[in-house]
Every structure is written in C-alpha cells, then in structure tokens.
C-alpha cells in the first residue's frame, strides 16, 4: 500500500492505496463520492471525467498514486460555482439528461468547454463532446444546454463572434 494525499473538492484527504487502484475507484470506494461513474474503464465513454488541476481527465486511466498532491474536482465539488450553476440549470431546462449515468462526465466536459472556448458554436460543441457517450438523449439537449450556458456566461454578443470551425 502507498500513502497518498490530495486535494479533493477543496479538502485535503489522504489514504492508503494499492498502486493499481484508479483515481476513480479511490474517489468512489475510499472517499465514498459515487457521483463519478465508471462505464468502459478504458477511456472511451467519458463518464469518469473529472477535473484534475483544473483540466478534464479520465479518472479511470489515472492511478490514484499518480494523483498524489494534485487538485481533484468531482461532480460533488462545484458548490456554488456560478459557471457550473448555469450549466446545471440549462441541463435541466434543455432535458440534457435522462438516466443520468453520463451526466457527471458531461458536466466536467461542459465546464471545460464554457471556460476554455467562449466562442464555440454548435459544431465545435458537438466535436468537443466526442469523448462523452450518452445513450439516452441523442445529444441535442446537451448541445442546447451548453450553447445556452455559453451565451449566459459570455453574453449574447458572443453570437456574432461565434467561430464556424
């Protein structure tokens, strides 16, 4: 067992883990934060996506020992973050989830899109969502929600500057 310490949703936590334990399993099994979902466990489905040092990453492909001394934010950890509050609201209004299994990963990816790509148009949003699978919604509600969150956070004048990539 290896001792690790990391910042999880703003709180210092530590634990003893086997080297083979993924960050996702550490978060779910040891820290009892089961909002992070495991679908494929080989990096394809995106359900386990969390923010590590502010950037979205697959928690199924990161060893917990590799996350030692890093900053990890899961779906439980956004508190009253204004950007995530807007994304959540539009996910609800646009019916961007049904069973909810993919939602934690979708929210992490949506948060990254809204923060990193203020001018993203629907084509770009669609491309950026390529790494998150949803088997319920057909994606249109998710694209709508992120599009509206972008407008809400960055102002409607971003529409005239939307890129066409």
């Amino acid at each position, binding site marked *: 067992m*290896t001792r690790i310490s990391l910042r999880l949703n703003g709180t210092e936590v530590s634990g003893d883990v086997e080297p083979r334990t993924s960050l996702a399993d550490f978060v779910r099994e040891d820290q009892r934060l089961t909002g992070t979902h495991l679908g494929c*466990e080989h990096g394809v489905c995106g359900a386990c996506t969390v923010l590590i040092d502010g*950037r979205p990453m697959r928690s199924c*492909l990161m060893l917990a020992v590799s996350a030692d001394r890093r900053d990890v934010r899961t779906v439980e950890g956004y508190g009253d973050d204004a950007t995530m509050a807007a994304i959540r609201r539009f996910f609800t209004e646009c019916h961007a989830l049904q069973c909810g299994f993919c939602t934690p990963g979708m929210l992490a990816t949506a948060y990254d899109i809204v923060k990193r790509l203020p001018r993203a148009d629907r084509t770009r949003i669609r491309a950026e969502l*390529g790494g998150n699978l949803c088997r319920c919604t057909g994606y249109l509600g998710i694209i709508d929600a992120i599009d509206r969150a972008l407008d809400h956070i960055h102002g409607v004048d971003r529409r005239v500057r939307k890129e066409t990539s």
Partner: protein
Amino acid sequence: MKPASFAYARPSSLDEALSLLAENAGRARLLAGGQSLGPMLNLRLATPELVIDIGRLAELQRVETTDGVQLVGAGVCHADIEDGCVPDVARGLLQHVARGIAYRAVRNRGTIGGSLAHADPAADWPPVMIALGAEVDIASTRGRRRIKAAELVTGVLSTALEPDEMIEAIRIPRASSTLRWGHYKVSAKPGDFAESVAVIVIDGIGAGARGVLAGRSQVPLLLSETARAVAEMRGWPRDARAVVETALEADLGHHGVRAALSPEDRSIYLASVLRAAQEAVAA
C-alpha cells in the same frame, strides 16, 4: 476491468528513472500520460511487475528552439501542443494534428513521446513526425543516442527502443515559410482511432516532399512516388485523381503490401491520401 497488481515508483529525476528502468528492463513499463498504457493495464493486456511513473519529470517537459530545430520534451501533452505552447515550426500542422487526437480529456494527459514509444499503427504522431523528418533523442544509463523518427517504428507496437531505453525528446526541423501540408484521417467519429491517416508535406521539390500513410493495422509507410507526383502539381489538375492513384499503387507495391490489401482498405487508404494531397496542393 481492473489491472493486475504491480509495484509503483515515481522517480524524481530522469537519471533515477533510467536507473530503475535499467535494473528492471523487461519487467517494467514507463507511465507518462497513461492514455495507452492505462487501457492496456485495465484490460490486462499489459501486466508489468513495475510501473515507473515519469509523468512529472521536469526533464521531459523541455520546449526549446535552437538552430532551426524545435525540441519538444517527450512528456509534453497533446493539449499543450493544441494550445500553441510549442512553437509550430510546421506552419500549423502540429496544432492541427494535436487537436485531432482523441478527446480533450485524453489530450490533457497523453504525451507526444508516449505516442511514439507505444507505436500504435493508428496513432497520430508517428506518421507526422516521419513526414516532417523529425529525430528522436533516446536516453538510457548507457548514454544517449539520436535516431530518425522513420527508424523508430519497426512494426505494430514495436520500436527500435531497447528495454532499458526511454524517449527523452523529439527534434522537429523548422520548415521553410513555403511549406505546404495536407493531413487527412479517416475515422468512424471525431477522435476515434484512424482507419487510415495520410500526411503529405511539400517543402520544395525532391527530398522536400514527403508522404506517409498509416492505418489501423498498417505501420507508417513512406509514399515517395505519391509525394513527388503531388509536389509537381500546379493546382489540382483534371487527371489528379488518376495520377495520385497510380503513384499510390506504385508506393504500396514498392513496400510489398499491395497484394494483401482488402478492397476496403485500398479504398480508405486512397481516400485519405487523395484528401491530404488535395489539401497540400490547395495550401
């Protein structure tokens, strides 16, 4: 699936990592971003006794421009290249390729050195580095050596790296201001593994024109005839498709892979090469 048990080490310097690798050569795997090794561990396709985590080594994060060469540390992630943290010495090709690799969450972890060392035939960097004439700096406790990217990949998931060796950096020659390039990847959806990928760079006539083709089970192939034919084009002539197809057939024949090709592979190879050629000519 969960990985089989392994021991773990996170050395704090490159020398320490190389010593660990030498002591455990053949029993250890290097872990950088883990976007290829991670799935292989989880699926138990890889069951190393020791995983050496080199993901935080500062020595592998170097980004330096010298003598017309851009040095990129092996540990630089695709997302940083996508975001322009590495000067794009190939007139936008590096950023274009980086942005097409898998998904942002993968690009935030996966590294250029890992992509080359893993040598998946469908990987994005090997054909591009070969086309750009890049070189690879290799380190071990025995010393340093430098080889061409074209000599690194020897087969499917196979490289010229010895068990105690590690890629330290990639050296990309600075292209001239007249470089034209085309790059096209055929995949089932954005970010998926390539069914076929073709890259053509034209930096002058003759040796300055290079084409590389790779695919899901096809290691990178140099397309000398095709690159020469495309470099000589003025615009996209009426018979361009036939010219490219004939040249590609010659290249595939030269490499001895033409006879064994399925009609499907032949079609998608031709599609990727045609689109890359069209892009290079129009650039």
